[in-house]
């Protein structure tokens, strides 16, 4: 890594009433890293994200931001450092995109607040940098899922946070919008933003993440450089799925076993050649 540790999780455990969701999670996230959280449904990824944000309180363990316990830093301060980008959702009321982005200014405000001109400018800049300024006065309920996701990222930018914590940001987006979203993440990470991103797609993690953390049954199953730990063996264990990670030396792809047309780990080689042949023919 060689990066400053920005966020450190120490022995995080959490349980809803009876069932333990997370047990003894340790993790370090460096400044400027893109970290993908991988794991099956219900493995505790979303819970972990909310704990990192300080929105949920762990039963045991602590979260440190720059070496300070986030509980001691206060919610407003934390909100100025870390922004939550939820999975795209709809609101009941047709707030405009601008209204949504302006919410990002709340952590910079005192108890009674009015938005000022400079808040408006910051929101405008955030929209501009994602090229969605034309959506500012559109109703958030009437734009597409991809545009809503960009609006939520714009809010995170307006929040002034340098760390973005995303819960399935690509969930529910069509293929084109998924790629656009990944582009924005790559662009922002080059500008030094840190990303923690729960994702259902190991391929997305392979494409954009520096590191991956695999969570299964509330514990860390594997953690490390994305291209090292996202391999056939780990993915099979993580998802109980018959999948192969194929590598042609340039890029990797996760391909279901059935498509490889062969059985067992040993078949991976043939599978690879078959897929490569397909690629060559196409």
């Amino acid at each position: 890594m060689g990066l400053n540790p920005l966020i450190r999780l120490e022995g995080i455990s959490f349980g809803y009433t009876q069932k333990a969701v997370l047990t003894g999670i340790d993790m370090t996230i460096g400044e400027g890293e893109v970290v993908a959280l991988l794991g099956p449904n219900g493995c505790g990824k979303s819970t972990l994200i909310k704990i990192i944000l300080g929105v949920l309180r762990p039963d045991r363990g602590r979260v440190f931001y720059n070496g300070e316990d986030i509980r001691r830093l206060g919610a407003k301060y934390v909100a100025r450092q870390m922004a939550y980008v939820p999975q795209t959702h709809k609101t009941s009321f047709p707030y405009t995109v601008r209204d949504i982005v302006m919410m990002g200014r709340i952590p910079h405000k005192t108890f009674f607040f009015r938005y000022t001109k400079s808040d408006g400018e910051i929101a405008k800049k955030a929209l501009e940098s994602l090229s969605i300024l034309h959506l500012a006065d559109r109703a958030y309920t009437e734009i597409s899922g991809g545009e809503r996701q960009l609006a939520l990222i714009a809010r995170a930018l307006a929040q002034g946070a340098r760390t973005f914590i995303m819960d399935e940001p690509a969930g529910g987006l069509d293929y084109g919008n998924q790629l656009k979203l990944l582009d924005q993440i790559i662009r922002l990470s080059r500008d030094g933003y840190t990303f923690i991103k729960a994702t259902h797609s190991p391929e997305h993690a392979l494409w954009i993440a520096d590191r991956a953390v695999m969570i299964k049954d509330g514990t860390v199953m594997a953690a490390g450089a994305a291209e090292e730990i996202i391999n056939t063996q780990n993915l099979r264990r993580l998802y109980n799925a018959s999948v192969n990670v194929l590598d042609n030396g340039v890029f990797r792809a996760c391909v279901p076993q059935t498509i490889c047309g062969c059985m067992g780990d040993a078949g991976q080689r043939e599978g690879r050649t078959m897929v490569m042949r397909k690629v060559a023919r196409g």
Partner: protein
Amino acid sequence: MKVKKVLFPLLSIILALTAAVSLTIGKYPLELIDIAGFFLFKIFNVGVMDPERYGLLRSVLLDIRMPRILAAALIGASLSVAGASFQAMFVNPLVSPSLLGVLAGASLGAALGMVFSDSWLAVQCLTFIFGLFSVLIAVGIAKMHKGNAILLLILGGVISSALFTSLLSIIKYIADPTNQLPAIVQWLMGGLSMVDCRTLVFAGVPQLVSIMLMILFSGYLNALGMGDEEARSLGIPVEGIRMLLIFLATLMSALTVVLAGMVGWVGLIIPHIARMLVGPDNKILIPASALIGAIYLIIVDDVSRMLFSVEIPIGITTSLIGIPFFVAILRKAKRGWD
């Protein structure tokens, strides 16, 4: 942005005009010019006025019509603001100020007062106390359980409303059917004829203060509507702010019952009209609702007073006007709900 600059002065002028015109309406018809003359004489000592006529105008305008119009404006504003803030907070456009049981509790309080005491003050105090008490029970029920806070609060409100409505039935049942029962029934229909200056001050000042505070806090309402976790990630102390806003809304709603009994539908339809005019942003919606609600209720009270030779309880008028109106705007208002 442009709308905002024109809208508030415009609404304020309409409110002032409505109030002025309403001063002329009543059993003793007056011209605007008479009223202007009276106020000029009273405040600036300009012009001449026959003492007998002065006394008459004084009692008609200052003792009867003014408190009534002010009360109508305050009640309209309070119910609309409470309704708009509940709709934003509970992320549901069909919510009204009675959601957490404040109106059911206040009705029981009023009925208790009418049956067990002869003092009007006691009735008003009990109305207020039970209004707050029923919301406290709703919140208490919600806090007993862990889970989705919004859903639990709504359930708590349903339970609390049901409880206080049944208790009200008991009181109605045991009330003396010749005097007390008609009084209770009439109170539940709402009416501004009981408003006097003292009540107006005691209820109106806290109402005004809580409306002002609600306007100051309105910036949080948008974010609260995004869900608790998202709001918390923006650094908002969600639980605390929500309880504070519920308290303010409850306070202003309970005081409307103290002033005029049950006035239904205002808190549901005015926020919709306001939202159609200014959009859903609560920083603008809440003050706009206050002004539109005030204008609306002054007009409805004029209708109640003048439509027939006897006054119709205002709760009936607001429902009769509100229901068809709601049906008419439903098509437009539901845009973007789902």
